[in-house]
């Protein structure tokens, strides 16, 4: 109607997105961004203490507390290590999986969470197939929720155990972390970054303790936006050039189940990005090799490297136990301090068995 452009330029700003209300429960661990560097440090120190603790004493820390493991995806490492870690602290655990529960009948995540709460669950460990699942569960139950992997988004305990593993090798004897603890260290993450929650959590955590994160992979699996998702993140598409700069090398599995029609020539991929003994010896003979598992031998990593002297893959698994003990202790200790009831839910919290609590 009026084609005349405005003569005076105005600031065309609108209100910024509101500050997040998450986490509702101080015991929750939804994202690595929920933790300050100090809190990360305390968790690392506490993990070591708990690992060295006398098992009989340790067994009383969360004696008879109820922790539910809610798993919408198959898992070996994460599920078992959460379960063993909870039991090592004396907690009672129960496992609910999507394949042997009412989830199969169409029960929603919200209703499943409220049901677990009504049964007395005091914290929920959630592995979910959709990004953001842990946020939805926390908002609707207001319980401490530990994100054990949500879709392609985050896997914060994995990043913490990776940090612990990297520290053991590159900063031996140092127990806590500060913003510059890993200054001068380059950690490269290789492969299917796009679909990886492990990569996203590590990308957000490692730069906050001083590391430089170098992402490596083909365009299909590593979009340019990745470098803009946080500080301290760079992209180097040439695998060998990246390898030369790195003190820690984190290999990722190609997530065939999430490729969704994407065309990827696996032979080409192997030629460009497979971590072989030859490449490792020539370009990064001292680097520590990590992999969150499951590994596909002969695909992203050769059997020789996976079993080799530089591999810390099984150490990562063991470190998962210690880290998850510390995270669950935090979840249930913090819970005593503040308790927000979900406003939408009027049902009383389940009665707890008195005398059972430590």
């Amino acid at each position: 109607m009026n084609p005349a452009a405005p003569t005076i330029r105005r600031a065309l700003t609108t209100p910024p997105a509101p500050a997040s209300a998450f986490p509702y429960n101080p015991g929750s661990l939804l994202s690595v961004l929920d933790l300050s560097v100090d809190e990360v440090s305390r968790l690392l120190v506490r993990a070591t203490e708990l690992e060295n603790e006398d098992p009989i004493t340790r067994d009383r820390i969360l004696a008879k507390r109820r922790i539910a493991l809610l798993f919408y995806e198959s898992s070996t490492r994460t599920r078992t290590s959460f379960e063993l870690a909870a039991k090592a602290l004396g907690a009672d655990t129960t496992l609910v999986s999507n394949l042997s529960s009412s989830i199969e009948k169409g029960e929603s995540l919200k209703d499943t969470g409220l049901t677990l709460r009504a049964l007395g669950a005091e914290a929920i460990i959630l592995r979910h197939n959709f990004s953001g699942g842990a946020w939805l569960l926390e908002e609707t139950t207001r319980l401490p929720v530990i994100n054990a992997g949500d879709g392609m988004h985050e896997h914060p305990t994995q990043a913490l155990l990776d940090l612990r593993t990297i520290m053991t090798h590159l900063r031996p004897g140092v127990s806590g972390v500060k913003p510059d603890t890993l200054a001068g260290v380059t950690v490269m993450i290789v492969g299917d970054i796009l679909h990886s929650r492990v990569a996203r959590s590590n990308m957000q955590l490692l730069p906050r303790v001083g590391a430089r994160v170098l992402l490596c992979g083909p365009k299909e699996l590593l979009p340019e936006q990745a470098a803009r998702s946080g500080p301290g993140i760079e992209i180097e598409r040439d695998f060998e050039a990246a390898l030369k700069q790195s003190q820690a090398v984190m290999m990722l599995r190609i997530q065939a189940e999430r490729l969704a029609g994407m065309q990827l020539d696996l032979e080409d991929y192997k030629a460009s990005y497979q971590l072989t003994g030859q490449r490792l010896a020539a370009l990064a003979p001292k680097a520590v090799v990590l992999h969150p598992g499951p590994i596909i031998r002969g695909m992203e990593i050769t059997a020789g490297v996976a079993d080799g002297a530089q591999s810390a893959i099984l150490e990562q698994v063991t470190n998962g136990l210690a880290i998850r003990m510390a995270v669950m202790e935090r979840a249930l200790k913090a819970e005593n301090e503040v308790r927000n009831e979900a406003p939408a839910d009027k049902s009383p919290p389940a009665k707890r068995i008195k005398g059972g609590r430590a």
Partner: protein
Amino acid sequence: MTALAILNGRLIDPAAGIDELKDVLLIDGRVAEIAATGKLKGKNGAQVLEAKGMVVAPGLIDIHVHLREPGQAYKETIATGTAAAAAGGFTSVAAMPNTTPVNDSPEVTRWMQAPERGAHVRVFPIAAATRGSKGEALSDYAALKSAGAVAVTDDGRPILKDSIMRETLAAAARVGLTVIQHAEDTRMTQGASMNLGPVSFKLGLRGMPPEAETSIVERDIRLVAELKDAHPHLHVAHISTAEALTAVRQARRNGLRVTCEIAPHHFLLTDEHVGLYNTHAKMNPPLRSDKDREAMIEGLLDGVIDAIATDHAPHAMHEKEVEFELAPNGITGLETALGLSLRWLHREWRMPLGRVLSLLSAQPAALLGLKGRGTLTVGSFADVVVFDPKVEWTYRATESQSKAKNTPFDGWQMQGKVRWTVSEGKIAFASA
């Protein structure tokens, strides 16, 4: 005879070029007289609405709403949706055809307009461009038009085949109907739930590239150019990307009849507002980048955007209380469009009040050829909104007239409070 006299208000009728204190007399559903203030007092025994300090304007017209009937009355009904419309100052709404069954027939088109639906304001059905909105065979445009359809579209299921889109444009032009396109190449947006960019990457959500919108807009414009002699009218629904807007601007310079509308959320919010998986910030097209949002405001200010339309898309609470990727697209919009437009377009970005109102009434009426609407000249329909432009208030979703509460604007500051909405001479809404 029923008569309403709206006295002492500031009449703003952009189509007629009027902005002055006037009395307005409505008789039997039509505008009977516009007079200097003080002249109409008590005339014809009219019921008096005292509008001192208020703006009296043509009732607002929303050319993009989903009323969910027939078939999805649990989300919204024509009665509840139009009650929300009236509360928001709207006196006409154009209802999209993605109902159950799809509105591709004169029967459904008539059903939606039947008095039994209990509409509070006028409903203009927009019919499906293809049978079942399947994108294959055209529906019967002449029959749909005579049943009351004002445009055709396959909104939400955009027409991808060039040959079908060409036929649609040609056939609609023959009967004088506008073709509305929801521009999205759905082959590029499979499994995606928000805008593609750094935010979608960070959240681990598959993203819809802006090119999915741009490429369809450009393709459609090309077809309009090829069919130039038939004078087709292409209307781009809820435009959201800077590149698509550039394409529309260029098409207009080339003399093509290509128009577009924008939803308030696309000039106010960005993909950052998805926050941590807020399903009330999930709609299609998705919230875009800040660069796109700024381009949208520029487009409003420089006039290339023809109308504000809400894409009012009500959903039941439980449908939105799920994982982000599983939540349906859409937010409500009828009750917040005026308050947000006045707060931001007028107050913040200094668009004259008359132009804001034109984007919400005169221009959308012209786009769909709604005769006697969008203006208050004598003889026009007695569709009027009376609002106090000075009142600031806070929108509360819980107080909505709509069945649905899915809005990202809950708790937002609004400017301008609707006092009365008059639809064809009847008071459809009155606030306390």
